[in-house]
């Protein structure tokens, strides 16, 4: 078994000829959702399954993840924290704001927060960032996985409020949550268009990749804010 850091805080552990994506466990000895724990040279890693995480799928699709050990991350659509837990692993000196609007799901997320020192849970609707602008600071990265028809708008209003000028937006777009019948590539094109033009905050797309076979009909996207010319 050997370990290779492929991006800050993200590792590839080789074990018996297989490469396993993993993060360094910030809460050694326990796993979060049944994932495997891997020991190597006195460090413990948590296996990170791309089928259960859009962000992990983006990593395997060679999309550059701009998260550093001291990043401030706003995570929209945290659900019960499967992916948030890995982001938390990547941020020994940073912090992640985890927004989720379902109280039922938040209940599980809070249990994760109790075991971690760097997750700030926020029970709120991500389409209304003013509801949590008194809590969230300016961030380096926004990661969004809300699977909602208005996801482009959600990205724009949050980036407008919280994203630093040189910060990055990472977005997972689910075709079927926008249009259940249309051809996904057409949906993706329209969504990209909206991100580039439709809202006050506009984006420059740096990279995009579909996330199959890990997630069917999903597009992963990395973008930056277009600077306002005046």
């Amino acid at each position, binding site marked *: 078994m050997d370990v290779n850091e492929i991006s800050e805080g993200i590792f590839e552990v080789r074990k018996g000829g297989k490469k396993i994506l993993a993060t360094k466990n910030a809460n050694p000895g326990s796993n979060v959702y049944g994932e495997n724990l891997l020991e190597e040279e006195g460090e413990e890693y948590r296996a990170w399954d791309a089928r259960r995480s859009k962000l992990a799928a983006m990593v395997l699709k060679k999309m550059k993840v701009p998260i550093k050990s001291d990043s401030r991350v706003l995570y929209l659509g945290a659900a019960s924290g499967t992916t948030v837990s890995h982001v938390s692993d990547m941020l020994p000196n940073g*912090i992640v704001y985890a927004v989720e609007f379902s109280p039922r799901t938040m209940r599980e997320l*809070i249990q994760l927060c109790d075991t971690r020192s760097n997750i700030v*849970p926020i029970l709120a609707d991500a389409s*209304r960032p*003013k*509801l949590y602008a*008194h809590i969230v600071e*300016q961030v380096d990265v926004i990661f969004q996985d809300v699977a909602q028809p208005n996801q482009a708008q959600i990205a724009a209003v949050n980036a407008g409020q919280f994203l630093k000028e040189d910060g990055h937006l990472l977005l997972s777009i689910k075709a079927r949550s926008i249009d259940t019948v249309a051809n996904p590539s057409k949906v993706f094109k329209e969504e990209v268009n909206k991100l580039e033009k439709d809202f006050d905050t506009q984006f420059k797309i740096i990279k995009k990749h579909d996330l199959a076979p890990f997630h069917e009909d999903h597009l992963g996207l990395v973008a930056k804010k277009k600077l306002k010319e005046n």
Partner: protein
Amino acid sequence: MKIITWYGILTIGDDGVTECEPFNKDVDELAELLLQKDVVAYSPGSGFDIRTVAIECGFVENDEEYNSLLRDVSIRAAKLQISRTNTPDMQIIQAVEALDDIDDVVNVLSERLSEWYGLHFPELGLSSEPLVRFVSEFGSRNNVPAEHPMFEKATSSMGSELPSADEELIMGFASNACELYDSRHSIEASIVRNMEKMAPNVTLIAGSLIGARLISMTGGLARLSQLPSSTVQVMGANRALFKHLRGRATSPKHGIIFNNPLVKNSPWWQRGKIARALAAKISLAARMDVYSGELHPEIKVNLEKKVNFIKAANPKPPVKQKPAGKGYKGKNKGGER
């Protein structure tokens, strides 16, 4: 201009923050303040960094302290929010769903019992709860006492004998189902109690169980109070349709308020109109329950007046218009007399 942050109130002048009034550095207090309603009106502008100000004005010493305090406060606040979403109407919604779950299960069990016990006592003619109670009380038909109304049938039954090992099994099965019926009754009783406390007006107008179902279907009393009464009138219709398809209920066309005695016990041609009047009063009652929570008996009086008026105005079934057009084989086309 003043803005609110999680750690205090900031006054912003032309060149930045002019004043910082920090809150008490107490996790519980900060958590309560985090949940204030009017944050939106005083929210920091786009691009304003609240962290640097917190450190500059000395609320916290450094980034580490900022992170750990904010984490503690937000976890506390999220827990408070969760416990506050566990309101009485959430209890009622869960209770209503539990009733439906139990119904599904006891239906399956009592159908099984009917088949099984039918081998032994086919003449019994009971189903659902009475059947289940009967079997768990007597077991073999030979135990039915002489004064029991089923005694005759039991002694002359053509069913096969029930060996005692099987009797034990079948009685155990029946008593499990009995417990489910018991549990169903106590859940129903708790719904009645909670509804009277939480939604006295809806209870008065719709009845506690129908009222509870309406709340459950809309996802809460507040949402029910916002629905137009035309929606209230048909709510539950598609659900009834599915139950009907599974052979469990009649009248798939109507919403659940058609189970209210005012509607159900009226002749068919008045039901639609009465249901409309009832739905209007339920909407009104839900708003009363949300806004004041006090009982307003006059809603019921007005409803009864309205119902009596409908009954007086429509004493007879309407004469059915003969459908005109293709496929109708009558001699006279509709319209002439």
